[in-house]
Structure formats: C-alpha cells, structure tokens
C-alpha cells in the first residue's frame, strides 16, 4: 500500500497540472478557437481583397497586416485557452512549458524552429507580402507569410513554400524591401568599336520613353569594357513591381531596335561568357 502511494504521487502531481475536466469550459474553448480561426480566415481573405482595391501605395501596408493579425489571434487564443485547461500557477506553467519544450526540442525541432523564425520574421521583416525575394536561387513574389513557411509565387506561376528557418542560415535577397520600387536591369552587349556616349544617350531615352517606367526614380546607364566587347547595364524602376519582366522585355525590344537603327553592332554569339 505504501509503495502504491509513492508510485501514485507523481501521477497525482501531474494530474494537478490540469484543472478538473468538469470545470473546464469546453464551450468557451471551442468558441475561442472558432473566433481565432474566423479572424485569421477573414483577415486572409478580406485584407488582400481590400489591398487590390486601395491605391497602390497602400497595398503593401495592408498586406503586411495579414500575418500580424494572425499572430495576434493565435497569441490571444493561446493566452485565453491555457488558464481554462491548466491551473495557472507558476509551478504548473513551468512544468507544462518545460514538457512541451522538451517534446518540441526532440521531435519537432525544425518545425519549432520554423515557427520561431516566423515570429522573428514578423518582427525583423526580412520579407513582407508583396515583396520580391530570392532564397536559395528561387525568385518570386511573397504571396503569404504562414506560421511555418513563406509562400512565394515565381515568375512561371509556381508556388514555392520556403520554411522560415532558412532565415537563420541562408541569405535572403529582397529586391524591394517593403517599398514600392524595384530595380530592373536590362543588359546590352555591343561590339567594342563604337561611340559609347551615343549608346548611353540612346539607352537613356529608351528607358525614359517606356510606359512602364517610374519617372520619379533615376535612370542609370553603366558601361563596362570587357574582352569580348562593351557591356551596358540599363538600371531603372517600373511603376508596378509585378510588371518587371514585361518592363525588361520592353526595354530590351526597344533598346535593340534603337541601337540597330543607330548602326551599332551587337557582340556575336559565343563571344559573351554566360552571365550569372
């Protein structure tokens, strides 16, 4: 009998962590979960819908609210549910979080790491919805910041789910960093024997006359001499980030046309090393 009492003691202690099941307000917990899910779902649908209808400059700040609202909903839900399940004494909470932490540490290390990185991402904001980022060679627009992953849509319309834990070790390249402006670079490769000043002027006008161009941003033409010829970089910004590829196409088509009309010769195929 004495041994039985000794064995039962920890079980009783563990049992005291939780409130008497009859006292737990099951209905309240269900309601809290439903409200939290509703807030998350509504914010995920309503805010992007609203962002599409608001002026372009308000689109980004509106989209950023989606993950923030989700975090707030989850945190509030957690804070409201825990006292309804666990007797919220200091010792009980330490024991509970210790046990949960241990389980996560061994079984779901990467998962937990991604969740924590997701929270850090909301604070540090290395990427926001609407940003154009590159992670591990994958480039695309941030469509959604989930609890565990960031979802980006690549230019060929493929959704790539990237775990937030990449944030710890990988380089995150953000092309616009939350702002409306994203630089595009059109490249031209010309035979070295030509008047570079004229080409520079032509390319400047090509950019200046593109309907995609954001005129409030600078246009820069960079010229570098290479063993195979002359390399031109035309750096400009489109009005709308999503138009970056059409913008580059427009610059390239009209740039080639203007240079051809000016009698300039392009470097022959095979001479230009492959660009990274």
């Amino acid at each position, binding site marked *: 009998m004495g041994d039985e009492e000794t064995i039962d003691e920890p079980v009783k202690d563990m049992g005291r962590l939780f409130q008497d099941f009859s006292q737990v307000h099951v209905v309240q917990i269900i309601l809290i979960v439903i409200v939290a899910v509703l807030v998350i779902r509504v914010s995920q649908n309503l805010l992007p819908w609203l962002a599409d209808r608001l002026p*372009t400059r308000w689109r980004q700040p509106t989209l950023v609210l989606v993950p923030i609202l989700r975090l707030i909903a989850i945190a509030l839900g957690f804070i409201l549910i825990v006292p309804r399940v666990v007797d919220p004494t200091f010792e009980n909470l330490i024991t509970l979080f210790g046990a949960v932490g241990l389980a996560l540490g061994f079984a779901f290390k990467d998962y937990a790491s991604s969740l924590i990185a997701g929270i850090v991402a909301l604070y540090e904001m290395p990427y926001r919805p609407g940003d154009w980022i590159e992670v591990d060679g994958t480039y695309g627009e941030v469509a959604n910041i989930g609890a565990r992953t960031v979802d980006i849509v690549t230019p060929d319309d493929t959704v790539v789910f990237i775990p937030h834990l990449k944030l710890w070790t990988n380089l995150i390249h953000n092309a616009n960093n939350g702002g*409306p402006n994203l630089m595009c670079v059109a490249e031209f490769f010309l035979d070295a024997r030509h008047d570079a000043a004229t080409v520079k002027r032509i390319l400047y006008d*090509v950019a200046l*006359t593109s*309907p995609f161009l954001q005129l409030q941003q600078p246009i820069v033409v960079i010229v570098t001499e290479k063993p195979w010829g002359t390399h031109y970089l035309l750096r400009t910004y489109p009005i*709308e980030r999503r138009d970056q590829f059409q913008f580059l196409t427009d610059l390239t088509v009209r740039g080639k046309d*203007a240079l051809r009309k000016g009698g300039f010769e392009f470097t022959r195929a095979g001479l230009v090393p492959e660009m990274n």
Partner: protein
Amino acid sequence: MAEFSVPSASLVETQKTGLTRWWKKLRGGSQREESTLVAERDLVAWPEDRLDQVAPPVDWSLAVDAFDERIAQWLDVDVEDSKISQKIVFLIGPPHSGRNQTLTGWAERRELSIWPTPDPETVWRADSAWLERPQDNQRPWVLPELQRCFFRHADGLTLVRGFLDMALSGKLGRGVIGCDSWAWAYLQHIWHFRQPATLSLAALDAADLAVLFGDSQARDNGQPIVFKQSDSGRCVIAPPSDLSSAGESCTDYLKSLAATSRGNVGIASAIWRMSLRRSPEGKVDEEKTANRREFTSVWVRPLRDLELPEPPGKPNRDVAFILHALLLHDGLSFDLLEQLLPLSPSRISETLVQLESDRLLQQSDEDTWRVSPTGYLYVREFLHQQGYLVDSF
C-alpha cells in the same frame, strides 16, 4: 505656377462625396443610388440647342483679357533689353483649361506670329527646317502647343530638345510657349529647365464660377434665369434682387463644383451643363415674382447625384498606358498610340471603344482621342493612385 492652388470644398460636401465614392469603390461597382426626391426623378436634361442658351460655351475672350493684362509689361520691354532668362515665357495649363484658345486668341489680338504646330512626320524626322524662326525678328512669337512637338518614344524627343535648346538660349528671340501641364511634367525629365518664367491660368473659385455661369441669366430669350438646386429648391447663383426673397441664401454648389473641377474652367463648365435639368415634356418653369417679373427656373442637380464617368471595375495596366499617353500628348490618334505603346492594335482599339462607351474618352474630328472633360477627374485620380506621373494642377 507655384502660386496655383486648387479650391477647397465645404467640409460636409467633401465628407458626403468622399464616403459615397468609397462605398461605391468597395462594392466594386458603379451602381448609382436613386434620388429619393420625386421632383428630382421627374426632371429631364435640356436639349442641346436650349442648353446652349441657358449655359453657353465658355467665352475665352475673358481669359485673353486677363492674360493680356498680365503679360503687357513683358511685351513692352525692348527685345535688346531683355535678359536671356526673360525672353521666353511659358503658359502652363491643364487639359480643358482653355490654354490653347487663350494663347491663340491673344496672338491674334496682338498680331503676333504663331509658330505652326509640327505634324507627326516632322517630329519623327526632327526636321530642322521647323526650327527656323517665323517672320519678324523684333516681335515676339507664340507657340501654343509645345505638347505637340514630341512623342514619348526614343525617336520622338530630338525635335523638342533642339527647340528648347535654341529657345532658352535666346537664339529664337522672345516668345510665349503654351504647354499642357501633363506634357510639362514629363518635359522636366527630358530637358532640365533652369527656372523658366512660367505663368498658369488661375484656378476658378465659387465667385468666379458665379460670374461665368450667372452671366447667362439674360440669355434665355431675354428672360432672366434663376438656377435652383433640385433637392432643396434654394438658389445656386444669387439672382438679381428683384427676383429673390429677402434674406435668401444660396447653396454651396458652386464651391463644391470649383473644388471638384480643380478650378478648371472647361471641366467646371462641362459638369455645370451636365447638372442642368428642366421639367419634362417641354414645359418650362416660368414663374412670376410678387412684382410680376417673369423668369425661367433651371434646376441644378447636386454634384453627389451626378453620374460622372467612371468605368465599371478597376481599369487594368493597358488602360492606364493609353490614358497616360493621351494625357502626356494632349490627345493622340490611333496610329500614334500604336507606335508609342507596346500594345497590339486590336487591344488598343477595343480599349478605346470601351473607354469611349464609359464616357472617359472622346474622339475629335481629326481622329484624335482625348480624355473627356467630365472623365478627366476620374482619370487623373486613377493615374495618381497607380503611381504614374501626374501634373501639378
């Protein structure tokens, strides 16, 4: 130009109009709300010939008078005495503000030579013959439409650059150059002006509009007109004292109109003509005052009840390209749009037709497409929201 300021509306009207527009935008449609007033529903638009009597087209000679007075001092300075920076004066104005009519009318009044507008071929070829100064060397010249001297194309900027180089270095003598405000905003990126002398037509306020529209009171077959707001019956423009009751005050309609139209006379006039209503079946509201003087009542719909042009949904990028190109050049033909924009001819064609049916565009006799006066307000706001370069007016 820095002194230009857009008139402001009354706070209540701004809130009403703003909330109504946002609600419509959020609903994603352009459904109009029926007026709850019976009298409002019964009123009909004026036939075109009668409309010209009660709201005649703008008389630009008033603008010519004002410009002539403003520039008289500059005109009297001897050409040899004027500094290079003072040799050229720019008159900048938004679309439909009557800038071209004002400058042309002024040049005719002062018998000054008008620099001919280059045809598209001249602009494409950057024909240097066009840069030769017209006629008299001592008298100033007038170029009313600088916006017709360039195209937003890599081959379309040489002529205007050459012209501005010569004009602003003093080689062309003294001249007055008119330029559309949208083209002016774009030209700042093409040619970096060194603080040129610029003038602009001032924005009209409620008092100016009252003078402009009230002047037509004596023109309805000799019978005075009293403009009354259809939802309240109160006067819109103060009638002569013998036609009004003592202490009668007018509505804020003109103040709202001045703010809505951004003080632009052409746009205000177009909205004003659109607002006017009469009783149906040709019945004219002729009334008599206590002293038996007869007058015609013309009903004016409140601005918030007007169906100003607006597309059914949010326009896409192609629409923005076309609208922006039309504003930068103050109108373009279909052929030029095709050369300037990276859009297929069929896409341009169907967009133009759609925008015309939405009343945002209108086509002139010369096959030139322009943003309509009543559509301009929506178009400007839309392009501004989308991040396109807009004018300062």
